[in-house]
């Protein structure tokens, strides 16, 4: 039986306070009439208004979403394939290198990845712009997707795939009709992770973006460099809100699925 000891309760409370207080402060100050952190000038939403009229921010946001959308989809497809190779691939030439290439980007400092990709694009004469950022993001995100999906594949019961083959499905049909629906939650998690990583990336985008394509993080970074701008507070609050809504929604869906499963098991016990 798990009880919450004093020690555990304290460490949890302190820990979460540590994680959340800075963000709460940003949210509060996004409604501050005054520009300064030191002074509370009264409640105001004017910074939100200014933000929404800021052309530079808006176009950067649009670029960021486009990059995020495309790179996350490519990353999900490639990452799922990579997971399959890792878990089901067996032995083949260069397996160690492949495994290394999947895990290394997870920990590689972004300055190195960014620099190396930029040099690659220059060497092959590819103009920097939207396309290069998408390629770059897809490359490092796919590794995260691989890790998420492969951890699901490892515990996957292969007898359902064999059953599908036994009943007449081709290997691809077995994947499409049986495996994929079952591992879908992991694939979706991977996709969301890839999307977040792309939307959030600063360093790599700095290296591989061109003059035509500025992403939101790049814009935000240069704004911060110039000083604490209250528009950034507003932007941060909006982003935090989006993430919160998304995460809470995801968590509620999982909770509902768990409850549905419990009800199903009850139904099963009663029917036997």
């Amino acid at each position, binding site marked *: 039986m*798990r009880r*919450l000891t004093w020690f*555990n*309760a304290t*460490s*949890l409370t302190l*820990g*979460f306070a*540590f*994680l*959340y*207080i*800075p*963000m709460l402060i940003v949210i509060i100050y996004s409604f501050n009439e005054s520009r300064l*952190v*030191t002074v509370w000038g009264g409640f105001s939403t004017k910074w939100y208004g200014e933000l929404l009229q800021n052309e530079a921010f808006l176009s950067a946001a649009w670029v960021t979403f486009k990059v995020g959308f495309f790179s996350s989809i490519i990353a999900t497809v*490639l*990452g799922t*394939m*990579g997971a*399959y*190779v890792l878990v089901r*691939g067996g032995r*083949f030439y260069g397996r160690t290198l*492949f495994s*290394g*290439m*999947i*895990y290394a980007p*997870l*920990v*590689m*400092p*972004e*300055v*190195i*990845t960014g*620099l*190396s*990709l930029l*040099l*690659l694009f*220059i*060497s092959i004469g590819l103009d920097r712009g939207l396309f290069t950022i998408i390629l770059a993001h897809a*490359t*490092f995100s*796919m590794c995260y997707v*691989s890790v998420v999906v*492969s*951890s699901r594949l*490892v515990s996957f019961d292969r007898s359902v795939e064999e059953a599908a083959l036994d009943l007449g499905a081709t290997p691809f049909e077995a994947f499409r009709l049986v495996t994929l629906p079952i591992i879908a939650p992991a694939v979706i998690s991977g996709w969301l992770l890839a999307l977040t990583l792309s939307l959030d990336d*600063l360093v790599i985008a*700095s290296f591989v973006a061109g003059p035509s394509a500025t992403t939101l*993080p790049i814009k*935000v970074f240069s704004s*911060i460099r110039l000083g604490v701008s209250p528009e950034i507070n507003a932007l*941060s609050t909006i*982003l935090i809100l989006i993430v919160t809504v*998304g995460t809470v929604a995801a*968590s509620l869906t999982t909770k509902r699925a768990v409850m549905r499963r419990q009800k199903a098991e009850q139904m099963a016990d009663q029917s036997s």
Partner: protein
Amino acid sequence: MNLRRLSLIAVPYLWLFGLFFVPFLIVFKISLSDIALSIPPYTPTLELSEGWAGFKDMVSKFDFENFEFLATDDLYWKSYLSSVQIALISTFICLLIGFPIAYGMANAPKEWQPTLMLLVILPFWTSFLIRVYSLIGLLGQEGLLNQFLMWIGLINDPLIILNTNLAVYIGIVYTYCPFMILPIYATLIKLDGSLLEAAEDLGCSRTEAFWRITVPLSKAGIIAGCFLVFIPALGEFVIPSLLGGSDTLMIGKVLYEEFFSNRDWPVAGAVAVILLLILIVPIVLYQRNEQKMMEAEQ
């Protein structure tokens, strides 16, 4: 090997090889080149039209001049050292803070666990940049932390935290904490509670059982968490750039500035190569740990 299997392996393999591995070779190549006022701003460049002779000519112009430069100029080796030091200390602090949180989560009543997990993941999904930004308002001289401490009377003059190494430590620990918590939590919840009961049944005290059983069995998660913090922290750029001062020496910042401010790509390349060499051992160890954990589950 049939065609289907071959293409399944080939597609991600070739993608990663071309877009991840080959670029490193290019970095190495320019680290051996010299800076030039041209586009691209380095020489020699590879002229494919000149064929093998062109290649040999290029190789002959390579030199280790940049590496010698790095070895002699104080800035660089001090930055490497400082980066390693900061990364190590931050990892350790992350462990001190993260482990109790993960432990608390793992031992919480089952109904709370999804919510707790949600609370840890939320900052993780929130923009990294925003979280660093949120610390700026907090740690400045007129920032809220100082205001709070002065208000409760703990200090009289504001502490100078922002733009020092201390702010960098706080920043790294703050932003990387979820990376430490999640792997440890994942390992701890798999721990069989009956093992601890068996230990106590055989005469261990609670604390002894913790150190002798819980900690060794969560080793894989602890190691994963440490690598997930240490390796990227070593090459961090955003945090030292926004929270650190001009005397904060971190190699990621140095590389970025060499590249963008000084426009010395060959030196930047050399900096990257040395950083990679420093990181190769931890990266390989990290990957081995992950493989081991995955094989253990199969």
